[in-house]
Structures are given as C-alpha cells and as structure tokens.
C-alpha cells in the first residue's frame, strides 16, 4: 500500500513538473518597463511590423512582439490570444461594432499622448461613458480606380463621349462613357471596362460593404441620423445603377462571377485587361506586385463612385478607417504604458514616422505629421488630391452595418442576382430583413 502511494505521488510530481516546464519560460521578463505585444491586422505588412519591432527594441530597449493574424481571421486569433497570460497589449478593432464586441478589453485612451495628437478628435471611438477606446491610425479611401493610359486611348477615339477624365462627374456621364468604351473594347485592347465583380463567398466585400456604404449613408443623411435599427434601402435604385453597370460592362460574364476573387480582379487591372476597378488606396501594393504589371504609377487615379445620387457632381471618395488602435485594459499597467509609448513613438519620432508613412503607407491622421510627410504611393496621392480639391468625402458608415452575417447574406443575394437566380426585389428584401434581424440581435 505504501509503495503504491509513493508511486502515485512520484508520478504526480513528474507530471506536474513536466507541465510546469511548458508555461513558465515566457512570463519571467515582467520588468518595470513593461513590454508590448501587438496583434497586427494586415498580413501584407507583417514583415514591416517585425522590422519596426526590432528597430524599436534597439532604440529604446523595450521588447515588442508582433503577431500577425492570417487574412480574415483577426477576430478568432484575437479571441484565443487575449485569454493567454501573455496576451496582446495592443490590438485593433474595426469601429463601433468591434468596440461592442471588445469593450471589456478596451482601456480608456483619453490621457494618452497619441490621442492628444489626433488631428480630429471626432474620429476616435468613444464609449457611453465618454471615454476614448479606439484611436484610428490611418485614413483610407476607395473609389473607382482607373488606368489613364487606357482612358486616354479612349478619349482619342472618334465619337468619344467626353474628352478628359475630369469631365466624368456624374452617373449619366460615367454610364455613357463606360458603355461606349465597352462597345469599342477591341479597339482599346481590353476585355471589358470593369474588372470582374468578384462574388466568390468572402470575396464580395467590395460590394456588400464598400459599395453599399454610399446608398446607406444617403439614407442616414435623408433621415438625419448616424445609425438605424431598420433601413428601407431607400437608395437601392442607385446601388442597382452602378452594380448593373459593373456587371454588364465587365471582363467576365455575370454567370461566371461566382468563381472570381478580389485577386483575379486586381490582376486583370494590373495586366491592362480592363480600364477600371473599384477598390481602395491599399490596392496599389497589390497592383504593383502582379508580375507582368503594365499599369504605370503616374497613370493611376481615383474616380468617385457615381450612382446617380443627388449632388454627386461634388462628391468625393469614401474616406474613413476601419483600423483603430486599442490597448488591452486587462494588461499590466507597465505594459499598457509601454504600448502607449510605442504608438506615440510611431507617430512622433522621425524613424517611427518614416515607417508609418513610407513602409506601411498609412495616411496618419495625427498633428505630428507635416505636409511633406505624406505617403508616396500614387493612389494615396490621388486620394489626398481629391480630398484637398474641395470635394465632399463620404464617411465610412459601414462600420455600423450590423454583422458579418448581414454582409454574407447581402453578398450571397448579389451573387444570385448576378447569375440570374434571384430578382432585384429579392436582394432588396434580403437587405431589409437581414439588417433588421441582425440589428435586433445586437441590442438583446
């Protein structure tokens, strides 16, 4: 009996020591300075963040760990990482809906230096208690990207509807130009005016999120609100205008769109097979990377998305952000401070600013950036030019869209509409019903 007890005890000790060996190594460096653990949202700049972490450690001696979540898996990665004892101290949310999900983990940032440096305090995410819980670190814009080389080829043809890109300032003109271009596609050497309207599941965000932003914003404006529990999708005709234009004047048969992803669209644009594609300033890297890319930096620019809304002659790009820095409120005070210092270093020190602007390509909305410190990539430049020209930017209100489930349903309906298995009224009712249902669930 005694031996048995001894044996049991011994094996328990063994097991425990073996287990203890796993977890202890990482947690020992909790010094007074704290350390930073950043969960990066953008896989395309993962290497840049690694580099920043190294440089920052060399400069200040504070350890920075960067983990990048694979595309589309940020929420799930964050959910599993944040419960660990070595949890992310700095992470990001995508707006008010993201804040609802993560409010238990968002620390009040109103006293931090980087919030103080935010050029427009309205951009930050505020909680019900008035605290500041998310600070945007970049501004992005999207519209219709065009290849000026092909456009110029068109303007030179006989009977061209307009003579320059500046003349396209409303939907009627855009439609006339696009349809004329499509009929002359052989002459222009393209397969279609617009790149494929990618409708593969989880590749439809350019439509159910970005494009839908405009009619929903118009509806908010018409009602004088910033969010709605139910929408009528009152400007669905405008959405249909532009969506039909995309579908019918494209490189791809509408029935084949269920096999196209965003990469396919961007590749078509980069290879000069189409003249226009709807996307944002982040797409420049993607276009430039395609091998055999024929689009030159000086030939690329933005056109606002016209869909026949009132006063659209003066409409600019859709500008906003889906990237807000948050600091983990459940991290130790030293770590929280280290994280805040790290962000401030990024937006105020010469090295940090260089990374922010030139390597990460962020249009940082902070007062610490001077006029010269603007990104060099052509799409960001085009976006800033349009913003400065006095056109009215449309804010990103898709951050108030109820949930991914709503977006998926909307995207699925658009696919069915494109391939002819659902009529437009079906799409409209999917939007109305899903919006209502998902918004109702949020408030339970």
């Amino acid at each position: 009996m005694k031996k048995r007890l001894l044996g049991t005890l011994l094996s328990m000790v063994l097991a425990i020591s073996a287990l203890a060996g796993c977890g202890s190594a990482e947690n020992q460096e909790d010094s007074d300075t704290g350390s930073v653990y950043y969960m990066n949202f953008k896989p395309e700049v993962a290497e840049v963040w690694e580099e920043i972490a190294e440089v920052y450690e060399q400069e200040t001696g504070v350890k920075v760990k960067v983990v990048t979540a694979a595309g589309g898996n940020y929420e799930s990665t964050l959910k599993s990482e944040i419960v660990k004892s070595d949890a992310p101290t700095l992470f990001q949310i995508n707006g008010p809906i993201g804040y609802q999900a993560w409010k238990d983990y968002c620390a009040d940032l109103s006293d931090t230096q980087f919030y103080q440096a935010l050029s427009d305090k309205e951009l930050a995410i505020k909680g019900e208690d008035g605290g500041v819980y998310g600070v945007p670190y970049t501004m992005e814009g999207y519209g219709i990207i065009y290849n000026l080389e092909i456009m110029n080829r068109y303007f030179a043809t006989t009977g061209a509807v307009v003579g320059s890109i500046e003349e396209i300032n409303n939907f009627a003109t855009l439609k006339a130009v696009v349809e004329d271009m499509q009929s002359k596609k052989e002459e222009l050497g393209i397969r279609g005016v617009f790149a494929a309207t990618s409708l593969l599941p989880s590749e439809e965000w350019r439509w159910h999120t970005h494009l839908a932003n405009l009619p929903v914003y118009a509806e908010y404006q018409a009602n004088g609100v910033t969010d709605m529990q139910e929408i009528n999708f009152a400007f669905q005709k405008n959405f249909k205008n532009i969506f039909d234009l995309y579908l019918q004047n494209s490189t791809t048969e509408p029935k084949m769109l269920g096999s196209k992803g965003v990469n396919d669209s961007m590749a078509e644009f980069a290879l000069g097979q189409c003249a226009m594609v709807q996307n944002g300033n982040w797409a420049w890297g993607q276009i430039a990377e395609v091998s055999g890319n024929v689009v030159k930096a000086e030939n690329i620019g933005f056109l606002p998305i016209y869909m026949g809304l009132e006063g659209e002659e003066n409409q600019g790009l859709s500008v906003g952000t889906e990237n807000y820095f948050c600091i983990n409120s459940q991290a130790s005070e030293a770590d929280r401070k280290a994280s805040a210092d790290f962000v401030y270093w990024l937006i105020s020190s010469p090295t940090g600013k260089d990374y922010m602007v030139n390597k990460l390509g962020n249009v940082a909305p902070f007062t610490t950036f001077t006029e010269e410190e603007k990104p060099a990539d052509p799409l960001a430049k085009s976006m800033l030019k349009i913003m400065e020209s006095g056109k009215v930017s449309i804010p990103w209100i898709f951050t108030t869209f109820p949930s991914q489930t709503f977006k998926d349903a909307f995207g699925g309906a658009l696919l069915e509409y494109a391939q002819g298995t659902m009529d437009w009224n079906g799409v409209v009712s999917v939007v109305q019903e899903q919006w209502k249902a998902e918004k109702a669930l949020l408030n339970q």
Partner: protein
Amino acid sequence: MEKTMKKYFPLFVLPTLVAFLIAFVVPFVMGVYLSFCEFTTVTNARFVGTANYIKAFSNQDFLRALIFTVLFAGVAIVTINVFGFLLALMLTQKLPGRNLFRTVFFMPNLIGGIVLGYIWQSMINGVLSGFGMTMLMDAKYGYWGLIILMNWQMIGYIMVIYIAGLQNVSTDVLEAAKIDGANKLRTLFRVTIPMMMPSITICLFLTISNSFKMFDQNLALTGGGPSGKTTMLALDIYKTFYDKVGFEGVGQAKAVLFFLIVAGIAMVQLVLTRHKEVES
C-alpha cells in the same frame, strides 16, 4: 505478475489520465458550461441559463444546416462504403501492381481538407465553365461537389480497413463454403460480409462521424454559398460563433447540440452493427 500489475497500475495510467483530463475532459466540461453563458473570451463568461439554446433556434439557419448535413451524410455514407468495399474486393485479387493501386487510392487522404476543397473548386468550376456556370449557380452543384470530394478523400482510407478485414476472413471457412457448393456471390453475402462485420462497424462509424463533422472541405469548396444554402452544421456553428456579435454562447450551444446529435447517431449505429458481428 497480476499483483505487480495491480500495484503499478496507477503509476502507468496517470500520465495518460492527466493528459486526457487536461486535453479532453476539462475543455469538454468548460464547453458545456460556456453554452449556458454569454462571453467574448472563455475567461469572462456570464451565466445566462438556457437563453443561448432558445436563440439557436431563433432563425432557420441551424435547422437548414442540419437538413443539408443529413442529406449529405445519407448519400456520402452509402457511396463511400460501397465504393470502398468494391475497391477492397478488387485489390485483394491477384492483380499486377495492386500495392501501387492501394497506395494511390489511399493518398488523397493524406492531403488536408482545405487544400482539397480549393483544388476541387477550381476543377468543378473549370468543368462547369464549359456550360457557362459556376458551382455557386445552384445548391445542387455544391451538394454533389461535396459528395464527390468526400468520396474521393475517404474511399481510400475505408478501402484499407476493408482490405485488412478481407484478409482476416479465414480461408478454412471460404474453402468449406466452396466445397458445399456456394457460388461466389453467395459466398460474399453469406460468408465474407458477416465475417467482416467488425470492419463494417468501424467503417460506418468513421464515415458517419466524418460526414457529420465535415468542415474544411465545406468552407473551402463552397463557403456555404449560394446564400448559405450549402452550409453544413460545423460551418454554421463556426459562422454563428465568429460572424455575429455576442453570439459566441449561441455557437457554443449549437456545438453542444451538434455533439449530442452526432454521438446519438453514432451510438445507435454501433449498437446495431455490433449486434450483427459473428464469431468464426
């Protein structure tokens, strides 16, 4: 010997027991508990009773996924077992190069589901594009796509188990049947198959549980499209958990129901087929 075994039994079983507790029992119990909670991460759970279970049926998604899964599993289980068994029969005959064939048929099983899903997606879309369509045109294309994919992946694995079973059927019994004048077909149905019931039990269990639990192939091949019509249970749970704000608990509740359904079906099947097993 017996005594020593008894004495040291706890010592030898403990490491496994601890691992089993940590890696299986604790997460399982926590999972069941969390299905009664509202939570963002597993450490900040708040008890809400059965609300999650009620919400799980607040829309048709779960039921629709359940029906689709049953339809899928019903066909997939039959085709996989029939084709797997036929292949096994073929590859236990004296064929030239049969080891090569066994390896080739087994190989799809070594490739991950996500990769297979994307490969088949482009293949099926490639074929359908000849007709001016894609797989997302109609749910039936996705449905048959999933069945083909699952068959392609599982047949080889099931075949290997059946081959092992076939080789275990004693030649004495087969010889006796031959002397008694049974023809080949009769021998197969009256002697070989009853003798192989243990393999059939295992194969049915594997195909039932794998068909019901299928996730990666579903995610990669159709992503649930068009409009969620080809969403299976596991994918529906995943989407509930990650795509709706504050629905983590509901996803968890669906997962518990999912477990009960799959475990229930598998148990019934085990009892039924065990019953049919014979001793030679």
